């Protein structure tokens, strides 16, 4: 076993370096973007990014609907995201991708639309939302 001590690893391409086991199989992927956002401490009617990586901003588009903008674009508009949301009350809250119809694409290389839902039936504003994204290459 060997250890190399660094403060950073820099890729020679536009994508992160591949991470392999000793037999040359790629065994993991870096997260390409994540964000935790919630209600602004100074104005609970607004939302602010609490912490994040590669997230430029979030936009509150309407009740229970948000757009997350990435700083550096994803390599494709078919990336994987997952997340959770908490409610401002005791209701169960879910989070899902947001498109108005089955043919709509809920994401671009620089943004993704999500919605936070209450009891699975209506869109509702959340208290705190966590999202993370993984992309090709």
């Amino acid at each position: 076993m060997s250890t190399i001590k660094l403060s950073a690893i820099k890729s020679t391409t536009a994508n992160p370096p591949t991470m392999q086991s000793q037999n040359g199989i790629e065994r993991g992927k870096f997260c390409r973007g994540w964000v935790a956002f919630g209600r602004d401490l100074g104005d609970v009617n607004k939302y602010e990014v609490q912490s994040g990586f590669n997230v430029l901003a979030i936009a509150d588009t309407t009740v229970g609907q948000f757009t997350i903008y990435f700083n550096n674009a994803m390599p494709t508009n078919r990336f994987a995201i997952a997340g959770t949301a908490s409610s401002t009350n005791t209701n169960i809250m879910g989070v899902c991708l947001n498109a108005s119809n089955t043919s709509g694409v809920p994401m671009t290389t620089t943004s993704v639309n999500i919605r936070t839902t209450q009891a699975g039936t209506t869109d509702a504003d959340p208290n705190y939302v966590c999202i993370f994204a993984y992309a090709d290459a």
Partner: protein
Amino acid sequence: MISSSSTLVVSNVSTVGLGTTRPPMFTNVDDQNVGHLASAWITFTNTASPNAVYASFNCLGFDDIGEGRFKINFTNSLETGANISTSSLYAVSGMGQAGSNRVTLMVDKTNGSTDHTDVIHSNFVAMRCGGSSASAGANQDGNYNSVIVFANPSQGFISPQRTD
């Protein structure tokens, strides 16, 4: 190449001496593990004809096992935990879109058994997509599903944990 600012410039990093299935560790100056790579992820539709995978890592694809139900198969098995033969007990999460319905992705466990081998397996994970539709709580196929998996490369690999 290592620059004067201690930045390693590479296109690929591979391990030695950690076993054939383990990626590199990421530790801080105190040898605490401070990062972890995703073990697998996938995006796909199961409403198209035929069903299609959009993009993935370490996934062979998925099996459509019913309305709103699917089994994702891994290319390289996720390592199993201590005293567990085939159930990795890894972390899995996802998000879906089924038209304009409000849906949730969840592990497709429909009984109270503490044996999760049928759904959380080193070779696959079984999940379902459900939510509001004509009948509340019904499983439904999603036109965009995404799933992300984190697994322990080995028991003990992640220690010592950060405590701050």
